[in-house]
C-alpha cells in the first residue's frame, strides 16, 4: 500500500509552549485513520502542520510523497479540509460560500455537490452568519467533500451535527473509503472514530502514545467479566489466572478485570456450574482512558 501521509519526527514548538514532539506516523492509501486525543493534545497542530499552515520546528511530513513545506499547493489540490473551528463569509449565503470554494478548486461535479447538500439537509439560501453551529459545520463539510478529494483531513468533523446528520456523515466517509480515498479524522469522541476508522493513533501532551488497528486496540484493553455461580464462588481459582485483577465477590457473583486474552478465564469457568457469564467488551473510550490512566507513553 502506498503511504499517503508520512510523518517523520515531526516537532512543532510554540516558544515555551509545547506543540507536538517527534511524531512518527504513516497513513496508507484508502485507509480511514482516526487521530484521538483530549483537548490540547496536539491534534490540530499536527493537522495544521500537514497543511503547511504552520511550519515544523523539526522533522517533516510528506503527503502524496510531497514534503508539505516544499509544494503545499500540489497537496492542497488533492485534499479536502475541515478545520476544527472556522469562520466563513458572514454576508454570503451557504450556497454562495460553497460556490466560491468550488470556483477556487475548479472541476467540481455540480451533481455530487447538490447530492451532498441534499444528504446533509442544508438550506443554502441563508446567510452564513444566520446559520446554527451545526449548519455552519454542514457548509464546511460540503466545502471539504465536494471535489471528491484523494485525502480528507477532518478536524472534529461531527461537532455540532445532530445524530441523523452524523449518520449521513459516516455514510459519506464509508463511501469515500470504498472509492479508495483516504480519510484522516481527528476527534476526541471515541465512538466516532470507532465507527469510521481502520486504525487509530492516540496523542497525549504532544506525544504519540499508541498507533494500532481499532480492533487491536480493543484487544489490548481489559474485559470486565461477571460470573454468577450456582454454588460457592471459587475466588482462588480465578485470582491467579494470567491477566486477572480487581477480583471482587458479592453473594454468588464474581467480578474480575481481565487484561489481554480472556481464554484462561473462559476455560476455568467451564469447570464450574454457572448461572451466567457476562463479558463486557471494552469500548475504545475505556481503552483510551486506560492508556491515559497509566501515565506513561508508549511511542508508536
Amino acid at each position: 500500500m502506498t503511504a499517503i501521509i508520512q510523518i517523520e519526527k515531526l516537532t512543532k514548538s510554540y516558544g515555551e509552549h509545547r506543540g507536538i514532539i517527534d511524531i512518527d506516523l504513516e497513513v496508507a492509501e484508502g485507509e480511514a485513520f482516526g487521530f484521538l486525543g483530549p483537548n490540547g493534545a496536539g491534534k490540530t497542530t499536527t493537522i495544521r502542520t500537514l497543511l503547511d499552515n504552520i511550519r515544523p520546528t523539526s522533522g517533516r511530513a510528506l503527503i502524496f510523497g510531497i514534503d508539505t513545506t516544499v509544494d503545499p499547493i500540489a497537496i492542497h489540490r488533492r485534499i479536502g479540509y475541515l478545520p476544527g473551528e472556522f469562520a466563513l463569509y458572514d454576508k454570503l449565503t451557504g450556497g454562495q460560500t460553497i460556490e466560491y470554494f468550488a470556483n477556487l478548486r475548479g472541476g467540481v461535479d455540480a451533481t455530487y455537490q447538490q447530492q451532498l447538500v441534499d444528504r446533509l439537509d442544508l438550506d443554502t439560501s441563508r446567510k452564513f452568519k444566520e446559520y446554527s453551529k451545526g449548519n455552519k459545520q454542514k457548509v464546511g463539510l460540503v466545502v471539504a467533500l465536494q471535489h471528491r478529494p484523494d485525502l480528507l483531513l477532518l478536524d472534529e468533523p461531527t461537532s455540532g451535527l445532530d445524530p441523523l446528520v452524523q449518520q449521513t456523515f459516516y455514510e459519506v466517509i464509508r463511501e469515500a473509503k470504498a472509492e479508495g480515498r483516504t480519510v484522516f479524522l481527528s476527534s476526541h469522541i471515541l465512538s466516532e472514530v470507532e465507527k469510521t476508522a481502520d486504525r487509530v493513533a492516540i496523542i497525549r501532551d504532544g506525544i504519540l502514545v499508541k498507533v494500532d488497528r481499532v480492533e487491536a486496540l480493543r484487544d489490548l484493553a481489559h474485559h470486565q467479566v461477571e460470573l454468577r455461580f450456582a454454588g460457592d464462588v471459587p475466588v482462588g481459582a480465578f485470582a491467579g489466572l494470567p491477566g486477572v485483577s480487581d477480583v471482587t465477590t458479592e453473594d454468588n457473583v464474581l467480578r474480575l478485570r481481565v487484561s489481554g486474552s480472556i481464554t484462561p478465564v473462559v476455560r476455568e469457568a467451564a469447570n464450574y456450574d454457572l448461572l451466567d457469564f457476562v463479558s463486557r467488551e471494552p469500548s475504545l473510550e475505556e481503552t483510551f482512558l486506560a492508556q491515559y490512566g497509566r501515565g506513561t507513553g508508549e511511542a508508536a
Partner: protein
Amino acid sequence: MTSEVDRRPAPIAPAITGPSLLSRVYGFGSIYGKAMRDSRRAVLLIAIFMGLLLVGVSFAIVQEFNTPASRQQLVAVVAAVPAILAGLAGKAVNVGTLGGYLQYKYGSFFPIIVSLWAILALSGTLAAESRRGSMEFVAATATARRRIALEKLSAHLTGQAIVALVVFVALFVVGRSVNGLPGDEISVQMAAGYAIWLFLLGIAAGAVAFALAPFVGRGSAAGVAGAVMFGGFIVNGYQAAIPTIAPLANLTWFGWTSNHVPLAGQFDWVTLLPVAVVAVVLFVVGVEAFARRDVGATSPIPTPSLPRALVGLQGPTGRASGQNLPSSIAWGIGIGLFGLAIAGSGKSFIDELGKATDFVKLLNQVFPGFDIRSVGGFLQLLYVEFGLILAGLAAATLVGVWAGDETSGRLELLLATPLSRARWVISGGVAILIGIVVVTAVAALGIAVGAVIAGGDVVQPVVGSLVLALYAAALAGVGVAIGGVFGSGYAAPAVAIITILTWFLDILAPAFRLPDAVHALALTSHYGFTMLGQWDPVGIVASVVLAVGGVLLGAWGFRRRDLRG
C-alpha cells in the same frame, strides 16, 4: 433534653470571602466592575484627549489672539464663514472670548465624540455579548437579567461621567490659568454647564442604541442611533441656511439645547431636562427589553445585498474586492461630501479670508508654501490636508477587511484549496487598490459637484484630489507588508497609527519649525500642492514603490511565517 443530647456542634464552615469592594467597582468582582475594566482604555483615551486638547488649544488661542484687534479679526472671520461650513461648527456667541471661541470651534465636536463612543458601547454592551454567546453564561448565573443590564449600563454612565468630569476640570484649570484678555475667564458655572451638557448629549445618543439593540441587534441599533445623532446635528446646524429643514431641528436634543451655550456665558438649563428624561426612558426600554426578550433574539433591519455580479465568487481578487466594496463606497461618499462642502464654499470663504490678515498669517505659518487665499490654496488647506487623514483611515479599513480572512480563521479553509499564500496576499493587495480607486472616484465626484456649484474650475480640483489615492495606496502597501510579515492582525492598526502620526508630523513640523529632515519623514510632505497643479514626483514615486513593494514584501513575508490560529 434529647435535643440537647442530639445537638451537634455546627460544622465550622470554611471562611468564604466574597469579592473585594475594589474588584466589585473595578475588576472581576461584579458585572459592573468588569464592564468598568473593559472600558478603561476608552475612558482614559477620550478623557485625556479632550482634557489635553482643551488646555492646549486654550493656551494657543490666548497666545495667538492676544490683542483686542486680533480678536476683532477673529470675530470677523467667524462671521464670514459660509453657511455651508458654519453648519458644522457651534453657535457663534461671544466668539471674541476664549470660552465663546472654544464653544464655537470645539463645543459641537466633543458631543459627537462622546456620542459615538456611547453608541458603540451601549449598542454592544448587551447585544454583542449575546451574539458571541458569553451572555448565555452570564445569564445562567444567579444575577437577574435586569441587574445585568443595569450594571453594564451603569458602568458606561460612570465612564461618561468621568470624561465629563475631566472636561470640567480642564475648563476650570484653563479658566484660572490663562492670562488672556478681559472676558476670557471661564467660571465654574460655565465649565459645569458645558460638562453636564456634554454628558447628557452623549448618553442620549447612547440611549437610542441601548433601547434598540435588544430588538434589532448591535449593528442596526448603532446605525439608527448614529443616523439620529448625525441627522440631528446636521439639521440643527443647517436650519438657518436651509429654512425648510428648520421644523425638523427640534426633533433631537441638538435642537432642544441650541440656546445653551455655556462657555459663551449663555445658559438654558431647562432644556437639559428633556434630554435627561428621554435618556432615562430609553434606558428603561432597553433594560426591560433585555429582561423580557429571549437572549440574543433580534430581528435585524434588512439591508440590501450586493448584486450577484459584484459579490465576487469567481476568484480571490473578486471576492476580496466584493468584500471591500461597501466600505469603499461608504468612505468615498464620506470624503466626497466633505469635498462637496469645501469645494462649494471655496470662493466665498476666501473672499472673507482676505480681510483677516492676522488669521491668514497664522494659517501660513502652520501650512507654509502656498497662498491660501486662492481657490486651489483653500482646497489644498482644507480638502487635501484633512482628506489625507480620511484617505489613510479608509486604507486602514480596507486593510482590515483583507486581514479579516486570517483573523477570523477562514484563511485556514482558503489556503486548503490550491490558492497559494503569495496569491492570497497579492489578490488582497490588488483588491485593496481597487477599493482605493473606488473611494477616490466617488470622492472626486463630490468635489466635482462642489466645484460646479461654486462655478469654478472642475478639472484641477478633481485631478488634485487623486493625491488621496496615491497616499492611501502607499499606506495600504505598508499595511499589507506588515500583515504579511508579522501577522495581518497588526496591519490595520499600524496603518491607522501611521496615518495619524504622519498627519501630526506634517502639521507640527512647520508650526514648531522642526528641521526639514524631520518634516521629510512625513510622506504627505512630498506630494507638492496638487490642488494648485504642483505635483512632486518624489511623492508619486515613493507611493507607487510603497504600494507595489509593500504588497510584494507582504507576499514574501507571508510565505515564511505560520498562519495565525
